[in-house]
């Protein structure tokens, strides 16, 4: 029997600008990458969803604050709550935090500058659907490009997240003022993850690094396992 190609949706909000990069990277990693328009109140049959980077709804008020209420986000919430795999990249991470699907919030960088460069990351967890191809402690080089990437959680919440092992990635050196250099977190069940760096911009050595493919290929592989289980 042929191994099914996992179906991975990428939500396109007005102002998303890494949606096509995400679609391209997922397809290059052998997923059936499917665009999902923000007005769609229901998701098509999917094995995973990616919320891409960009500036959804102009990022007015707060980053991700308005995208949180779009019909597609409501569908993604339902998908996540039923155990579906959801990855938020950059603006997608901000949306998931605003939607309450991930803990914390992303604030303006402490430098007030837009940061656009490769950063070194440390993998804190390799037992998630998003990091299975990494090893704990491994260093990844993946670019960031954001003005509002300073992840924040109050001390009590941060302590809970540490206890639950919900910190997935950290910057190897301070980047944007994030509390404890957090670059990526997951929800309690480990089926929703968000990160500020852009793995979809690092899937080919020609782009300077292919380390992002470790994260996206982990997701595609986990989605494939779900597709097989459902077939």
């Amino acid at each position: 029997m042929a191994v099914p190609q996992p179906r991975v949706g990428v939500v396109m909000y007005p102002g998303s600008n890494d949606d096509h990069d995400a679609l391209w990277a997922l397809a290059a990693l052998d997923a059936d990458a499917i665009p999902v328009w923000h007005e769609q109140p229901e998701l098509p049959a999917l094995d995973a969803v990616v919320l891409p980077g960009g500036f959804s709804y102009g990022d007015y008020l707060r980053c991700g604050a308005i995208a949180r209420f779009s019909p597609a986000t409501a569908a993604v919430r339902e998908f996540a709550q039923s155990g579906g795999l959801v990855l938020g990249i950059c603006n997608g991470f901000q949306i998931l935090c605003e939607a309450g699907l991930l803990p914390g919030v992303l604030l303006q960088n402490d430098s007030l500058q837009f940061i656009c460069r490769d950063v070194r990351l440390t993998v804190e967890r390799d037992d998630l659907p998003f990091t299975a191809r990494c090893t704990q402690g491994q260093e990844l080089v993946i670019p960031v490009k954001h003005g509002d990437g300073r992840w924040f959680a109050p001390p009590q919440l941060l302590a809970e997240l540490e206890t639950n092992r919900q910190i997935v990635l950290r910057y190897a050196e301070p980047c944007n003022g994030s509390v404890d250099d957090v670059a990526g977190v997951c929800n309690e069940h480990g089926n929703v993850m968000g990160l500020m760096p852009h793995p979809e911009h690092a899937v080919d050595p020609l782009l300077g690094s292919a380390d992002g493919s470790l994260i996206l290929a982990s997701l595609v592989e986990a989605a494939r396992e779900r597709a097989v289980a459902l077939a």
Partner: protein
Amino acid sequence: MKATVLVRPKSGILDPQGQAVESALEHLGFTVSGARVGKVIDLEVDATDAAAARVQVEQMCERLLANPLIESYEIEVG
């Protein structure tokens, strides 16, 4: 009914914008401290009286206008 919402970064939240404003004011020769930058949102609310308007605006703040993790808000009606 006119309403105004003041949204402020909570105390303890690093506000680099406030720091930049403070530093600019110091460059102009002012001696200031504790500058914080928030937001003002003016609204025209469809409500019969101030109390009803306030209830609505409170819901707006809870659901959208402020993020309780990092921001506090004040509502003025009328």
